[in-house]
């Protein structure tokens, strides 16, 4: 029997998991398990920046950051949690710097900041420089720095261990089951507290910026154990993915002055967001791109547009906008500066498109990007399982997998990195504190039974169906029908299709009968997770008869605060989906029309 005992077990080693592990391990015996080597985590793919009102270039306040986030969330974010995050942002950034994170610097040697979508000076409504950045690899520097600090503090890692099940007994957390990739052995981690930090599930969609690893493992595992998921209809489509490939082109490109142009060469965002234009919220811009394409203004009649950061174009529109440097001089960039500020973007375009962004515009289309919904938690990372926010003892969650909710119906750029640093820390602290006052819940008699049962199913199917075909059909229908724009018939079609695919999935048979690195078996299991995520996403979306943030319905084009200013909760009970609701926490900001 491979049984381990730790007071706190963290599942996932991206930004949230590492932060949780770092803090929990200070006072509790802690292990971090991850299916990837920690530095491979998808946090490392985050590019443009992490938001905090440091005010290093110009006036800014956590209150402004709070309001922008509430507005960005289309008023679905919980305002107590948002205020907490935006206040905590400032010390969190300084803490990362003290850990050695190599932020870019201002001429005075302070942390450099750039504008980002939806972040504004609340008095003028103009974009404010709030995104703290390390070139266009801010997430890479965060995951590296946190992993390094974990090594320094001798945090115990189980690298390449994939979670398969959450163990609960009488409504209390008892641990997790994981498979060791190198041996195929199942391991039981007996724990007082478990922190789920496994990231999102953007591989549900055809065009995606998300890693292969983003298969919703943690979400699926807790969902199968009867924990509800919150606001799953809200998924972010980032406006600027590389055409066809979906690879992300950071909003930082527009922060540095890049503009979106349609097939006629028009800067169309002036029409949709007259004040902040290309720096509107992501949901607003993704919809604008779809509308331009639908009206025949794609490039060469095709379904893509241009993101243009050529210096002459940046300088032209900066002059029109009257954009200035912090010292008041006119904003002018050179090709060398573009390359220095956005080296990875330039590299991606050269490699995958054969396009040099310094001399050519980049073909882009919206790409599936971020899971706003997820495992419901409060602002301390405690998992809450009903409309009264009842805490599930010993269970915590943080980062993209969790729904606090600070992002509501639409996340602002830079707030994902902030989310995982702030809530990863508090989940770690709370879990360790809980462990101090709690005993181990005895393990169930056969802890690996459910994990084994799921694997058996994948090994013993008829073999009539192919996992990849099922996956491709799911991705296509979800991108077409539960994407940027949605309508009842489409969402019904998607839900039916996903249910059909779930049935067909039972006919899958994994060829690889071995134990060592049986990636075929694990990929098939991941597909079962994605199918569950697709199902709850389509069902939650179909249920919400309004448009809000990332959930844009053509049959219900307006926000409906009367009926829908509430979070969705979704469970599976006896094989059937059950939907419930819980109120949004409002403190200072009354909902009003959202205009950029």
């Amino acid at each position: 029997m491979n049984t381990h005992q730790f007071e706190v077990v963290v599942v996932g080693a991206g930004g949230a998991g590492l932060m949780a592990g770092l803090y929990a391990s200070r006072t509790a015996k802690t292990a971090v398990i991850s299916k990837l080597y920690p530095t491979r985590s998808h946090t490392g793919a985050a590019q443009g920046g992490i938001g905090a009102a440091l005010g290093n270039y110009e006036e800014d306040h956590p209150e402004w950051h709070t309001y922008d986030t509430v507005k960005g969330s289309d008023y679905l974010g919980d305002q107590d949690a948002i205020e907490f995050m935006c206040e905590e942002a400032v010390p969190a950034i300084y803490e990362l710097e003290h850990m050695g994170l190599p932020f870019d610097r201002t001429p005075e040697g302070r942390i450099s900041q750039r504008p980002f979508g939806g972040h504004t000076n609340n008095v003028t409504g103009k974009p404010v420089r709030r995104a703290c950045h390390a070139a266009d690899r801010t997430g890479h520097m965060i995951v590296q720095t946190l992993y390094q600090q974990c090594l320094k503090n001798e945090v115990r890692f189980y690298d390449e261990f994939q979670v398969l099940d959450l163990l609960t007994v009488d409504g209390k957390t008892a641990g997790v089951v994981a498979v060791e990739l190198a041996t195929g052995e199942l391991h039981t981690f007996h724990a007082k507290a478990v922190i789920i930090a496994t990231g999102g599930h953007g591989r549900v969609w055809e065009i995606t910026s998300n890693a292969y690893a983003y298969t919703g493992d943690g979400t699926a595992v807790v969902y199968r154990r009867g924990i509800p998921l919150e606001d799953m209809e809200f998924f972010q489509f980032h406006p600027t993915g590389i055409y066809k490939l979906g690879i992300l082109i950071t909003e930082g490109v527009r922060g540095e002055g890049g503009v979106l142009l349609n097939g006629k060469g028009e800067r169309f965002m002036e029409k949709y967001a007259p004040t902040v234009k290309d720096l509107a919220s992501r949901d607003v811009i993704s919809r604008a791109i779809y509308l331009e394409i639908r009206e025949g203004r794609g490039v060469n009649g095709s379904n893509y547009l241009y993101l243009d950061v050529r210096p002459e174009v940046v300088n032209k529109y900066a002059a029109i906008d009257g954009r200035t440097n912090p010292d008041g001089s006119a904003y002018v960039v050179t090709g060398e500066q573009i390359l220095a500020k956005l080296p990875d973007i330039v590299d991606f375009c050269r490699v995958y498109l054969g396009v040099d962004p310094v001399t050519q515009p980049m073909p882009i289309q919206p790409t599936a990007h971020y899971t706003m919904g997820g495992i419901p938690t409060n602002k301390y990372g405690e998992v809450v399982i009903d409309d009264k926010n009842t805490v599930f003892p010993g269970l915590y969650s943080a980062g993209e997998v969790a729904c606090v909710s600070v992002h509501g119906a639409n996340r602002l750029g830079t707030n994902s990195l902030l989310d995982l640093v702030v809530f990863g820390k508090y989940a770690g602290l709370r879990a360790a504190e809980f462990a101090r006052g709690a005993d181990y819940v005895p393990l169930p008699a056969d802890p690996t039974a459910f994990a084994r049962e799921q694997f058996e199913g994948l090994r013993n199917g008829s073999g009539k169906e192919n996992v990849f075909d099922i996956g491709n059909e799911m991705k296509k229908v979800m991108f077409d029908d539960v994407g940027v724009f949605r309508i009842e018939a489409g969402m019904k079609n998607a839900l039916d299709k996903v249910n059909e695919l779930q049935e067909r999935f039972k006919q899958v048979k994994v060829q690889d009968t071995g134990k060592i690195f049986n990636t075929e078996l694990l990929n098939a299991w991941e597909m079962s997770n994605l199918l569950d995520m697709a199902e709850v996403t389509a069902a939650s979306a179909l249920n919400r008869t309004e448009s809000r943030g990332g959930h844009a319905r053509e049959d219900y084009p307006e926000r409906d605060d009367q009926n829908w200013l509430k979070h969705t909760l979704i469970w599976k009970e006896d094989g059937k989906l059950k939907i419930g609701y819980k109120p949004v926490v409002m403190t200072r900001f009354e909902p009003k029309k959202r205009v950029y």
Partner: protein
Amino acid sequence: MDVTLKIFRYNPEKDQKWHYETYVIEAEPTDRVLDLLEKVKAYNDGTLSFRRSCAHGVCGSDAMRINSRNYLACKALVKDFGEKITVEPIMGLKVIKDLIVDMEPFFDNYKKILPFFINESPVPEDGKERIQSPEQRARFDDTTKCILCAACTTSCPSFWGSDDYLGPAALVNAHRFIFDSRDESASERLHVLSETSGVTRCHTTFNCTVACPREIQITVAIGELKMAMVTGKLD
């Protein structure tokens, strides 16, 4: 176009010895070699095993030998290799299964150079950031790009021929901290690098620099470390 894809195969639970399998795969010139591996796994042989995650060159999972040189499979496009492509595991680390190698010795070397920021002095009284000029920041910018993919280390003849050479990736990460004006433990790290397993094993073959998918000037960085050891100066 059809690509003839020859892949190194080894299943420790079945095979006495490694061998190659050849697959003819339909591909677009802009496909990534990783896409071809995914196709083989989907429709030819589900047992084919390799690591991958981000698929756009930032997570460092899929370093492989492609036509005898190290690349990330997700940054290697078919059009740059033509119709015959051979894929093998990176060299110098034990093959576990197919294209998957044992990464533990690689990470063990990384851990030896104290790969974490060390500054035990009090933080500024206002609790804000430590000051670092843009020039000081630029001094180690290149080596902050490392994604620990091991493409450099496993292209290095000195690493292949040695049981204990730290290898270029560990040196790159040592450089990242040694030349960070805020860090206080350059001398400890230089001491580690001065041992026989350290920088003296670098014979400037430039394989690492050629292999690096992040275009880090690794040989330059190692040269700066050698210079720092000789002169005791960090500027």
